[in-house]
């Protein structure tokens, strides 16, 4: 059926072109740049067709046209021109630098579109914006630059930022946007070197994203890498080096403050007292944190001849984090070639990208331990062992030494943060091979066929060496090697020894996966009179998700790194273990069709249809679903009444609707519960009371399908005052219509366990505003100011009655902080409301209180006034996802000097200070906590005393607003010095300042991004860092 209709379409196209045969005119001409120098490699295209050519080395070109044709001259970075062919045979064209972004060509998935014709929220970010902020991934560089795209940075070496497009729309399904690099779906965006990127397009709106069907619900990010341009070879060398440290260091209490706090707390609970004078005063963060550094070197060569365009690049990015030996390095090699054959009617594009990384992770839990470990504990004892939190409880001296009859305990259950980092010895090496071959065939002047085949192979090898003996000895300075050796003797003769007494262990893990994609599509472009039509039909097939993991572990291997080998061990007390896992891959088959039509560049109409089928779902034999979309646009400025306006240069309204899917949903398996023993599925029947085995349904299994998101959007593009002021305003309303939630085992429900069901809607609405002002003051000074602002309102709606109520945000101390509830944002904070401090026992006795309340503890509001404080008194306190984001960028160019400042801010969110909240007795506190504490009746009603409870409450919830200067850059460019074409030197300060009231290390607390977990809670977060970078860009 589908085949037939596709063939029919082709026939229609073919006959169309045959009728169209008229007088041909050969046009020859030359293209120059504004400096009157010949410009090679300019694309020259007959409007509404695929027929075109390129200018040669001397800027010359020739092309067959028909009278009345319009020729389009385009070149990246230069203003596109349209020239109508009347009676002329020769043309002299001068291309000037592009000051008008509206003529940009935007990649929209299976094709491109002129920016003026776009009728949805598509944002394009170009290479300049990306390379200006040096980072591992391009996305980190553009934080705060795209309205509606919330990028949450993570400054740990090798980390990827989290990208949330138009709000968080799912509780259980995948949250990642879909990345497509040059048409090839890509798993890990870290494999792409930012310097290789020509542009990034964010398909925010559903009417554009839906061309990617069931993977588009979290937004689509299209990356286009650089290609060679016709002309002589250009050699570029870009390099930078930078140092980084913690931006927002928290001051911890010193030894004296700690002792006082400890003793106050201890007195309240009848514990022992610490002596005033102790031997050590350790600042754990000073001991733990070092100056990190980053460094990148990038070489590229690009150019093009008559038939081949080429681009080669090599990049080595290296980073050492603020923890010692926490390293990440990445090398990428890219080669993009395009071959123009048969007079450029057949083109082959070949992209190859090889990425290899080397990573030495370190435990971020050490940030947590450094926060909590007592300053009285030394880094090292005098015997060379690492300090631990031993304290002589009889003398009140922090030491492991004791006399007879004295007892030694611990101040905290935490280890030594410095040793945590030292003893972790992990090495991860990955290799990613990505390649794609694409062909474009111009079947007629109007019809092009594109075929692509791409494949990715990924390998990862992880080695973890665990020095068990060193760890054992350092856990307690009194332990001796002899004791350890004694543990290695098989005393009971059962042939086994606890691996606790292995000298070490080595864990080796190999992961491998392969994915491929194959697609073909026909593009038909035609203009006649004022009508312009573009049609695309195609199909694609993909296999991905298959993954194999092999993991082996052995004990007592050689200590030397080069001898670490599971088959060469120092003893054979312990057995090696091997684990293998295999994940079934997913097959995906898709069909798509798109029609774009405009009349006189005024009225735009666009319809998209995608049909996707995946092998992931079994229920109902229905593997397939349809994803339609449409959008409309009206370019008001092209109407006669505005055409002559000098104030309004461009004004377009657009609106659209689209349906998107998310197939990355959890797999639901039903468990039938049986028991071979006395389980409550079994019962007794018969005169001899025989035990009869029965069964019960565990969690019900609801048929799970993809989540379907639908979105409406409305927008406005404008440019006023000679295009000095331009921008976009858009409103969106998107709803995940069948969100999967983890339905709780409610006391009176039918099910005996939690289960997953499509039982809710998640809606996101917001406004996005982007405004840009650019102007020049005199001849030498140009400047621009860009501002973007976006809002997001997230709500869980239409939950099946009783199906909400999943709690989350566990603090790992029995306290939870979040709950999924209808009418609230996804996993909103759900906490007791703190309301001052108990001043005396009398207050506690006469008011509702939690058990064990004591003066100095926080008091909580009895919301339901039932006289007891319990979970029913918990209240919702918003969400960790900002309700608004904003960015600002200012750029000034004066002669050869460039200066820019970028800033980024978020607001309307609440974050939870888990570090402070989960404190146990004996742990350190911040200086601020020490200074503000309650010290007795009447001292303060704002902060609890040294003795307090550890319940999760609104007291620990803080405003997550922050504004950060992301980047200040000052550069100077030399033109034509010596053999160099161009040389630019710059200094950059990354994240030099942050304005926030948050009392922890970083308000950007994404963790693993799972809203049900510790996202938004600071526990072991990597601090935001500040960097100072010096760099150079050379071109010859």
């Amino acid at each position: 059926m589908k085949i037939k209709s596709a063939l029919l379409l082709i026939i229609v196209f073919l006959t169309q072109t045959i009728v169209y045969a008229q007088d041909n005119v050969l046009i020859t001409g030359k293209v120059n740049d504004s400096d009157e120098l010949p410009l090679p490699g300019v694309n020259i295209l007959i409007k509404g067709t695929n027929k075109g050519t390129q200018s040669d080395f001397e800027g010359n070109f020739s092309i067959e046209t028909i009278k009345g044709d319009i020729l389009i001259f385009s070149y990246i970075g230069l203003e596109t021109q349209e020239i109508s062919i009347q009676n002329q045979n020769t043309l002299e064209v001068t291309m000037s630098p592009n000051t008008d972004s509206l003529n940009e060509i935007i990649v929209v998935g299976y094709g491109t579109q002129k920016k003026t014709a776009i009728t949805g929220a598509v944002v394009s970010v170009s290479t300049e914006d990306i390379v200006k902020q040096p980072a591992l991934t391009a996305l980190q560089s553009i934080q705060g630059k795209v309205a509606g795209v919330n990028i949450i940075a993570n400054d740990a070496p090798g980390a990827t930022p989290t990208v949330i497009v138009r709000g968080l729309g799912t509780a259980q399904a995948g949250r990642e946007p879909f990345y497509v690099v040059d048409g090839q779906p890509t798993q890990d965006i870290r494999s792409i070197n930012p310097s290789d990127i020509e542009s990034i397009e964010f398909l925010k709106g559903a009417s554009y994203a839906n061309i990617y069907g069931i993977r588009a619900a979290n937004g689509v990010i299209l990356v286009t890498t650089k290609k060679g341009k016709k002309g002589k070879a250009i050699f570029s060398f870009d390099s930078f080096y930078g140092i980084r440290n913690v931006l927002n260091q928290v001051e911890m209490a010193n030894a004296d403050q700690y002792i006082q706090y400890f003793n106050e707390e201890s007195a309240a609970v009848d514990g022992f007292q610490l002596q005033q004078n102790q031997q050590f005063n350790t600042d754990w963060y000073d001991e733990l944190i070092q100056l990190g550094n980053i460094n990148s070197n990038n070489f590229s060569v690009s150019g093009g001849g008559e038939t081949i365009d080429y681009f080669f690049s090599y990049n080595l990015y290296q980073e050492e984090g603020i923890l010692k030996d926490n390293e990440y390095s990445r090398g990428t090699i890219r080669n993009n070639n395009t071959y123009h054959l048969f007079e450029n009617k057949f083109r082959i594009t070949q992209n190859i990208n090889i990425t290899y990384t080397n990573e030495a992770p370190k435990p971020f839990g050490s940030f947590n331990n450094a926060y909590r470990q007592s300053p009285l504990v030394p880094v090292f004892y005098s015997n060379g062992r690492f300090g631990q939190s031993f304290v002589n409880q009889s003398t009140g001296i922090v030491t492991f030494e004791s006399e007879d009859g004295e007892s030694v305990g611990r101040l905290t259950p935490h280890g030594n943060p410095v040793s945590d980092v030292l003893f972790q010895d992990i090495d991860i090496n990955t290799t990613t091979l990505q390649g794609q071959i694409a062909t474009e065939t111009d079947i007629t002047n109007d019809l092009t066929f594109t075929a692509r085949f791409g494949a990715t192979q990924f390998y990862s090898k992880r080695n973890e060496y665990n020095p068990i003996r060193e760890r054992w000895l350092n856990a307690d300075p009194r332990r001796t090697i002899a004791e350890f050796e004694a543990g290695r003797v098989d005393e009971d003769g059962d042939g086994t020894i606890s691996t606790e007494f292995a000298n070490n262990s080595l864990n080796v893990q190999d992961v491998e996966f392969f994915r491929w994609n194959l697609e073909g599509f026909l593009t038909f472009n035609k203009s006649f009179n004022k009508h312009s039509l573009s049609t695309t039909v195609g199909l694609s097939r993909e296999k991905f998700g298959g993954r194999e993991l092999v993991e082996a572990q052995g004990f007592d291997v050689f200590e030397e790194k080069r001898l670490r080998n599971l088959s060469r061990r120092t003893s054979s007390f312990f057995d090696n273990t091997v684990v293998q896992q295999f994940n079934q891959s997913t097959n995906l088959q898709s069909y798509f069709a798109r029609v774009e039509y405009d009349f006189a560049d005024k009225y735009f109409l666009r319809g998209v249809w995608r049909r996707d089928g995946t092998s992931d779902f079994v229920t109902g034999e229905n593997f397939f679903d349809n994803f339609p979309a449409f959008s409309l646009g009206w370019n008001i400025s092209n109407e006669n009444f505005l055409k002559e306006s000098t104030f309004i240069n461009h004004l377009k309204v657009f609106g659209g609707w689209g349906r998107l899917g998310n197939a990355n949903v959890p797999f639901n398996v039903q468990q039938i519960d049986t028991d071979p023993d006395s389980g409550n599925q079994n019962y007794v029947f018969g005169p001899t009371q025989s035990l009869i085995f029965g069964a019960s349904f565990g969690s019900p299994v609801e048929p799970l399908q993809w989540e379907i998101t639908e979105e409406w959007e409305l927008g406005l593009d404008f440019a006023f005052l000679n295009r000095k002021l331009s921008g976009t305003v858009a409103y969106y309303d998107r709803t995940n219509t069948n969100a999967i939630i983890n339905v709780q085992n409610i006391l009176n429900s039918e099910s005996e366990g939690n289960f997953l069901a499509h039982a809710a809607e998640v809606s996101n609405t917001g406004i996005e505003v982007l405004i840009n002002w650019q102007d020049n003051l005199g001849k030498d000074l140009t400047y621009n100011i860009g501002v973007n602002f976006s809002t997001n309102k997230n709500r869980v709606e239409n939950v099946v009655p009783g199906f909400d109520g999943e709690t989350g945000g566990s603090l790992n101390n029995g306290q939870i902080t979040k709950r999924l509830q209808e009418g609230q944002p996804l996993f909103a904070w759900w906490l007791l409301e703190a309301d001052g401090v108990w001043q005396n026992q009398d207050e506690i006795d006469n008011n509702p209180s939690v058990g064990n309340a004591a003066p100095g503890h926080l008091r909580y509001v009895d919301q339901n006034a039932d006289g007891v404080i319990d979970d029913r008194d918990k209240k919702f306190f918003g969400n960790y996802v900002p309700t608004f984001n904003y960015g600002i960028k200012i750029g000034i160019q004066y002669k050869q000097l460039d200066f820019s400042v970028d800033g980024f801010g978020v607001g309307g969110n609440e974050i939870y200070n888990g570090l402070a909240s989960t404190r146990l007795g004996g742990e350190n506190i911040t200086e601020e906590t020490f200074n503000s504490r309650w010290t007795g009746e009447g001292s303060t009603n704002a902060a609890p005393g040294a003795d307090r409870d550890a319940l999760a409450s609104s007291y620990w919830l803080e405003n997550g607003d922050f504004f950060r200067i992301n980047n200040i850059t000052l550069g100077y460019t030399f033109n034509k010095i010596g053999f160099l074409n161009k040389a630019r030197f710059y200094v950059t300060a990354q994240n030099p300042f942050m304005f926030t009231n948050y009392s922890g290390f970083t308000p950007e607390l994404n963790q693993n991004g799972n809203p049900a977990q510790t996202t938004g809670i600071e526990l072991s977060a990597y601090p935001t860092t500040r960097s100072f970078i010096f760099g150079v860009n050379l071109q010859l």
Partner: protein
Amino acid sequence: MKAKLKLIVFALLFVAFFTGCDDFVEEVEVVAPTAEESGEVFEPIQFVTGVYGRHTDFAYAFSFLGITEMISDNADKGSAPTDTGADKNLLDGLTHTTSSPSIRAMWTQWYKTIGRATQAIEYTETFEMTNEELRERLIGECKFLRALNYFWLVRSFGDIPLQHIDIINRAPTSDVYAYIEQDLLEAIPALPFKSEYAASDLGRVTKGAAQSLLAKVYLYQKKWQESADMANTVITSGEYDLEPDYAKVWRVSGENGLESVFELQGRGEIVAHGIQQYSTTQGARGPSGWGWGFNTPSEDLLNAFNVEGDDIRRDATIIFAGETLFDGRVIDAGVENPRYNEKAYSSANAGQGDGDKNIRIIRFAEVLLIRAEALNELNLSSDALTNLNRVRNRVNLENITTTNQSELRQIIWNERRLELAMEHDRWFDLLRTGQAPAVMIAHGKPFETGKHELFPIPNDQLIQTPKMMQNPGW
């Protein structure tokens, strides 16, 4: 020439793409996610067994005692003064709260059983089986069990959510009773008589059990005529009679006996599977004891027996400290409590986890008393007396002769107390008959009218479903 070449290239590529089509996604074999497709075949009867099995939960061995007996005037918490049994001291003192774990346990237990019954019915209805009669019977068994659990719920909590409709909004009591009646009326024709079951099916729900429960459900709704008639159906069925020796009803030899209409089954031999520690929690505590000593018959109950001169039932109901039991077990005089519940006693039990004791849920004597009470309310006192005296005569008590309706009503209520003592009905009888305020206050417990008629909806439920309403006064 070139044009041809291009077209060939194009055609080849195009054909390559159009082959296979939708089949591609079906190449991958996906593991069947539902139980029905798991490859293992489960028979409906297994899930029906699972519904019965839910009644062997520990809740019946402990929480159940708290909210049915200890709370009433028949029993005290017992055990050591320091051992609260989680919240049994509060229930005994009528100071239980919305967070009492016993109430929460039974609420959950009953609803989860209802859930299992519903699931088993659905599974049985759609399962391919040749024996239609068996299918009907299995569904009937589940419907009885569902009705029984709803009955326990509705008399404890009043308006409650009907699980198949909505788990948040509380349906009026009348709707719940209507649903219970519907289940029972549908179960009755599908279920066989006790005598019709194969021996190996002993312990399953019978037609008589469904009819007896329905008679009781009518009684609770004061549908006197229906109650009397339904009880009569059971009485005249010829399936049941009174056990001549009252005490034998609770012995091993009396399990599923002549008088038994429905009981929960337990097995003490390895593999043991009982109603967990039902005997142990109520066993004597202290020297020579074997149990935790909870749920002890109150002095008030003892006095009630003595006033009536009802020695047979007194001695079958109460183990006295220092007594030698029928099986020769000597109860040390130094045990911690003066009295223990003999109806929970099992000779085989020495404190194991799973005991052999069956819990009697409905027995024939109660059916007679239901009919007696219903007839008396219908002003058919003389007919009522026949049934009442049949129960009394078995334990050598003289006939009642009064035909004064209100006098007889009191006598029947008292008869229920003595006959059914420690059988998990007293508290609800007190509430149903309106005696509770007077009796409990006389008993020295702070009964609050307008509050204690119903248990509170457990706090944990309201945390999960905040829109559910709490009961009045709580």
